[in-house]
C-alpha cells in the first residue's frame, strides 16, 4: 500500500456525511477526528471516528458553524487536514483561509475560488465570459430598482430576482410582471441582507418549467479537470431536493455532451480544484443555461459514485494532498442508472414539518445494489436542531426502469418508527411510481403541481 495522503483528518461536520467521510478516511489508512455538539455526543460518526472532540452546544451557530471549535480540535489532535462536508462551514472561504493560517489543509477549493463562485452574480459573469450559456439578465448585481426595471423590460417577464450570496434555491423571488417587481426586489434584498448579510441581487429571465441538471467535476492542482456525467435533481419541493438520479432521463446525446463540455470549461475558467458541481437548467426545448457552481461535495454525490465506480471523497482528499487526478476523461465510464431517495424525518401531510424523535425501529433496506448512508442506527434519537435527513437510499440497476423498481422495493422494506417520527418514505414511493416521473416527463414544478396543484 502507498502512504496515505494525510495522517489525520478532522471532519468539521455531523450526521451521515461525517460518517461517509470517516469511512473513506479509514479505507485510505487516515485517522479521523470527529467533532460534535452536545446532542450529537453518541452519534454514529462519533462512535466510528478514532477521536472525537466536543465543540459546542446544540445551536449550530455555537458548534458546527463556529470556526474555533474545529480549528482548535484539529490542532490539539494533531490533524493535518480538515474536511468540511456540505453545509455549515463548507462554502465559507474564511474558514478555508483560517485552516491554511493554522497549517491545516482545507479539503476543498482555494479560498479565492470559493469566494468567486460564492458570489452568484459574479460567477454568472465569469461563466458568460468563459463562453457558457447563461440566462438573459443583468450584468452582475442590479444596484437600483430603475436598473432592475430596465433589465426586466429588456429580457421580458417573468423574471427572477436572486441574492448574489444565495444559492441552492435560497434567496430568490419571482416577478411575473412589472407591477410585482418593486415588491419582489425589495423583499429579496431584505431577505438577502437578513440571511446572508449581503443585500446584492441580480435579475434573470425566469424559466417556469425546466429540469435541474448538474454535472459533477473534479479538478486537480495541476489544472486537469474531468467531469463525471450529470445528475438530474428535478424532483424538488420548494428548492429542496427529494430524489436525484443519473443519467438525466430523456436528455439527448448532444445536450449531454454539451453539458459535460460546459462543466469542464467553466471549472477550468475559475481554476477549480477538488470536487464541484456545475448546475444547469435544461428547459423544455432542451436549451441549457448555467445556474451556479457549488464548491463542495454534494448530498447526492453517491448517485455519481454508483455510475462511475469513483469514490468522490477519496478524490477530494487526494486532490487536496496535491495528487494528480487518477482518471482521464476518456477513462470515465458511466454505467447503468442510479436513484437517490432522501428519507427525511418530515411530515409531508403537515407541510413537511420536521418530525424528529427517537428511532425505536430503524430497519434499513439491504441486498443487491442498495446503498444506505445514514448517521443513525436503531435506538438513536434524531435531534431537532439540524436538518431532518435520516438516510440517503441509493440504488443502481442496468436501466432506469429497473432502478425505479429497486428503489421502490428498498423503500418498502425501510421501516422507521418512534414516537412523533414521521418520514417521507410514503411520499417518495408515490413520487417514484408516478407515471409522469416514470416516463421522465417531470420538471422542477412536478412535486409542487402534484401536492399543491
Amino acid at each position, binding site marked *: 500500500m502507498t502512504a496515505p495522503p494525510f495522517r489525520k483528518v478532522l471532519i468539521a461536520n455531523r450526521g451521515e456525511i461525517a460518517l461517509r467521510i470517516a469511512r473513506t478516511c479509514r479505507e485510505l489508512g487516515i485517522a479521523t477526528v470527529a467533532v460534535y455538539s*452536545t446532542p450529537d455526543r453518541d452519534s454514529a460518526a462519533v462512535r466510528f471516528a478514532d477521536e472525537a*472532540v*466536543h465543540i459546542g452546544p446544540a445551536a449550530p451557530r455555537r*458548534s458546527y458553524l463556529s470556526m*474555533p*471549535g474545529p480549528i*482548535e480540535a484539529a490542532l*490539539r489532535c494533531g490533524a493535518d487536514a480538515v474536511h468540511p462536508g456540505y453545509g455549515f462551514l463548507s462554502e465559507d472561504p474564511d474558514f478555508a483561509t483560517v485552516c491554511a493560517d493554522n497549517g491545516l489543509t482545507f479539503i476543498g477549493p482555494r479560498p479565492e475560488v470559493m469566494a468567486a463562485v460564492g458570489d452568484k452574480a459574479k460567477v454568472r459573469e465569469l461563466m458568460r465570459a468563459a463562453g457558457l450559456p447563461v440566462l438573459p439578465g443583468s450584468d452582475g448585481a442590479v444596484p437600483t430598482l430603475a436598473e432592475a426595471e430596465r433589465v426586466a423590460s429588456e429580457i421580458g417577464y417573468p423574471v427572477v430576482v436572486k441574492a448574489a450570496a444565495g444559492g441552492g434555491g435560497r434567496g430568490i423571488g419571482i416577478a411575473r410582471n412589472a407591477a410585482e417587481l418593486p415588491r419582489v426586489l425589495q423583499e429579496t434584498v431584505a431577505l438577502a441582507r437578513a440571511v446572508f448579510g449581503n443585500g446584492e441581487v441580480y435579475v434573470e429571465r425566469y424559466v417556469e418549467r425546466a429540469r435541474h441538471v448538474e454535472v459533477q467535476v473534479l479538478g486537480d492542482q495541476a489544472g486537469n479537470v474531468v467531469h463525471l456525467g450529470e445528475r438530474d435533481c428535478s424532483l424538488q419541493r420548494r428548492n429542496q431536493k427529494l430524489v436525484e438520479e443519473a443519467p438525466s432521463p430523456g436528455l439527448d446525446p448532444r445536450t449531454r455532451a454539451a453539458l459535460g463540455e460546459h462543466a469542464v470549461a467553466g471549472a477550468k475558467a475559475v481554476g477549480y480544484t477538488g470536487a464541484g458541481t456545475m448546475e444547469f437548467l435544461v428547459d423544455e426545448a432542451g436549451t441549457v443555461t448555467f445556474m451556479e457552481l457549488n464548491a463542495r461535495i454534494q448530498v447526492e454525490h453517491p448517485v455519481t459514485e454508483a455510475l462511475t465506480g469513483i469514490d468522490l471523497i477519496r478524490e477530494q482528499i487526494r486532490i487536496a494532498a496535491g495528487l494528480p487526478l487518477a482518471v482521464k476523461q476518456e477513462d470515465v465510464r458511466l454505467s447503468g442508472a442510479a436513484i437517490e431517495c432522501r428519507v427525511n424525518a418530515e411530515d409531508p401531510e403537515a407541510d413537511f414539518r420536521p418530525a424528529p424523535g427517537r428511532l425505536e425501529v430503524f430497519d434499513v433496506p439491504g441486498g443487491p445494489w442498495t446503498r444506505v448512508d445514514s448517521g443513525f442506527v436503531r435506538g438513536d434519537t434524531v435531534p431537532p436542531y439540524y436538518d431532518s435527513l435520516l438516510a440517503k437510499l441509493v440504488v443502481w440497476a442496468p436501466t432506469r426502469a429497473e432502478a425505479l423498481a429497486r428503489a421502490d422495493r428498498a423503500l418498502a422494506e425501510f421501516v422507521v418508527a418512534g414516537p412523533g417520527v414521521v418520514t417521507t418514505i410514503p411520499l417518495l414511493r408515490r413520487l417514484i411510481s408516478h407515471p409522469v416521473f416514470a416516463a421522465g416527463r417531470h420538471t422542477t414544478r412536478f412535486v409542487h403541481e402534484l401536492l399543491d396543484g
Partner: protein
Amino acid sequence: MSEQAWSEEFKLLRAEVSSLVKTIPGAVSTVVLRSGDRSVEVSWTHQEAPVARPPGEPEQPRDEVADPELRSVVAPLVGTFYVAPEPGAEPFARPGARVEPGQTVAIVEAMKLMNQVPSEWSGEVVEVLVADGQPVEFGQELLRVRVDGT
C-alpha cells in the same frame, strides 16, 4: 500468557474482592473475576427489609462530589485553558478566593483569541480542575465554586 502469570493476576483480582467485601456489608451472592482487560464483580443479596433511616439524619452524607452547594464553571468553547492573563501573572482565582457573578476566573484561548471565562455564581473557589496551558473541550469542568449559602 503463561500459567504462572495468569495465576498471579487472579490472585490480585481476588485480593480486590476481599477488599470490597470488607468494605460493603451484606451477604455476597456472586463473584466474577476475569482477566482479559481485568475485571472484578461482586453481588450481594439483601433479603431483609430496607434499613430505615433514623429520623433527623440527613438524606445524604455531606461530601464534596454531591454537595448541592458546589457549582461548576465549564469551558465555553474548545481551546487552551489559562489560569492567568499572561505567563507568570497572578491567577484569576486560586482555591479559597471569593468570586462574583461575571468575574473572570480563567481564559480559554481559541484561534489566538483570549476568551474570558466568567463565573456565574457568587461564592468561593474550591478547586481548579485543569492545569494551566492544557487543552479543554466545550463543556469541560474547569473550576468548582461553593456558592454562598441560601
